[in-house]
């Protein structure tokens, strides 16, 4: 049964970047609409878009300042700010002002894809409250904060539990190091060293010792949590 593709609005004044974003959007099987000024974007935002990709330094103003206005006008889409204002302070400001995610320019195409997928998934998963996440032999109990593989308990630290929960929410998709740092550690700066790798490595070893190869390295940019594919 053919369904209409998810629509994504891109508010971006640089045609080259807008086109690059649009091609990633189409790559995800969504349809892209491009607005090149802020007023135009605000006018379009109330339509049934799933995600809005929003630039900041736009003709007509700062995109982040317009988020509240878009929401007031009925925009229900997830908002991903994609901006050259990429310092930690800018990111925190954007998230505080209502953005659902914030990706600084220059961005890797893989990173953008990962963020868009996560947002599309969040849009559908909202409101669901599963206590038990089951991926074949791997079970995650959200309230008890425990992990079981083949019915055997796997001891994980609180941080490792948050890590595997975030992986589970994005199962089957590439999750980047930056996403992990932002969502699991709530840090919005680039620490330079790949501290995240050490944590993922530890969790991964624990899961492997218990017989699950759920976490795999995705070539290039991050990790994939694919417990069913990797039996």
């Amino acid at each position, binding site marked *: 049964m053919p369904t209409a593709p998810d629509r994504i609005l891109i508010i971006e004044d*640089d045609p*080259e*970047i807008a086109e*690059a974003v649009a091609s990633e959007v189409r790559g995800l099987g969504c349809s892209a609409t491009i607005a090149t000024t802020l007023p135009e974007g605000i006018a379009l935002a109330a339509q049934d878009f799933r995600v809005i990709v929003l630039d900041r*330094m736009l003709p007509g103003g700062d995109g982040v300042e317009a988020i509240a206005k878009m929401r007031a006008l009925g925009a229900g889409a997830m908002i991903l700010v994609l901006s*050259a*204002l*990429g*310092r*930690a*302070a*800018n990111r*925190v400001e954007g998230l505080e002002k209502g953005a659902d995610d914030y990706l*600084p*320019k*220059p*961005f*890797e*195409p893989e990173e953008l894809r990962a963020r868009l997928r996560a947002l599309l998934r969040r849009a559908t998963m909202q409101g669901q409250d599963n206590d038990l996440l089951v991926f074949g032999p791997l079970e995650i109990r959200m309230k008890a904060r425990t992990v079981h593989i083949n019915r055997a308990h796997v001891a994980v630290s609180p*941080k490792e539990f948050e890590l595997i929960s975030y992986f589970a929410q994005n199962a089957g998709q590439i999750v980047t190091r930056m996403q992990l740092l932002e969502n699991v*550690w*709530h*840090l*919005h*700066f*680039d*620490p*330079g*060293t790949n*501290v995240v790798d*050490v*944590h993922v490595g*530890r969790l991964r070893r624990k899961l492997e010792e218990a017989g699950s190869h759920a976490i795999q390295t995705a070539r*290039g940019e991050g990790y994939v949590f694919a417990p069913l594919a990797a039996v």
Partner: protein
Amino acid sequence: MKARFTLKLAAFMAMAVSLLSLLAMGLQYRLVETRLTEATTAALNADLAGYAALYQQRRIIALRQAINDRASTGAELLLLQDRNHTRLAGSETAWPPAITPQGSDFSTNAVQRFHHQGSDWLGVARILPGGFPLLVARSLTPVEATLASLRKGMAALGGVLLAAGAVVGSLAAKSVMTRIARINNLADQVANGDLTARIPGPSSPDEFGLLETHVHAMLDRIENLNRATHRLSDTIAHELRTPLNRMVQKLAQIEGQPELTAQLKAEMRNAIRVFDSLLDISRAEADQGGGGLLPVDLSAVVAEVWDLYEPLAEDKGLICTLNCAPDLQILGDRNLIAQMLSNLIDNAIKYCAQGDSLSLTLQTSGPQHCLILADSGPGLPADLRDAAFERFTRAPRDQERGIKGHGLGLALVRAIAARHGAKLSLPEVDAGLTVEILWPKL
């Protein structure tokens, strides 16, 4: 706050005015006193001249007659006695003990001032030829009465002047204080980080109004500069990152050279980190002492960042210890604090080798929270200690050993500490590097 200075000034003015007035009145008093005494002396002289003329004609008999005629007025003291000090004529029965006769003529020499029966007198006492004592004196009571009322008037006026000075002074101090309080309030608001604060209402056309205008002009300028700084950093970010963005897009189109493209991406990421650090440093410096800070659980941030880095340190073979007192609150920016701790811990891990120890301690000491990060690594070269927190400071040995860095990490740490009003120091230790940060308590 009391208007101490203005009050002092007003009190000084009131005292000065009162003193000057009293001085002027004092001079006037002296003048009046002299004139009145002179008038009394002149009257006395006239009396003496009259008696002299009578004495010339008929000696004691005429004198006795004249004194008897005048003795009843009360304003004069007259007495003529015979050789045996028996009264011949005059208002007194006996010779007043306060005055002794001098000379024997009617000249105006040797005028004496004396006290008799409760009042002051001005007079001459003689023993006339043949042994007749004579006393002629005029009362100084009217003079004294005039001077006394003059003194009373002066005292009253002085009191009124002081009271008026006090009232005017405190009113002036109060009004000056209200005006100054407006400017002080503004300064407080600005110090708390609100650069847009201004004194409401029109400024009055006086020196305080002028001061307000000047302060406003100054704040406008600071606000513009600050805005320009922020705009400049935004512009730098935009102008740097937009072309880099295009480069990344184009790199994605290059196929068959994954290593080279990965290296290029890493270089770009590095360049962005340097610029971000520089912009973060100048932003933290520009916001220094300003507002915008929120209550932050320092213990929680310390524990989180430690938790992030501990596995990395353990994997490198470091012996890690965390000693963190719970629930220590400060006013801060969580993200900046995390960035600062991350820089410090990352630095320590970078320089330490297998077997070194790394410990982080957070505890309350007096009015501050004390954070100490100590490692047993190589420490800082002695000649670098003072410059360690300057931008782009790098130890030559690092460059030789190929340890990467830009010398911005510690500069950012210092800027973030200053942004929070925290005191950053490097205590002298036997081995390794110890960084101490004292945070003001919330």
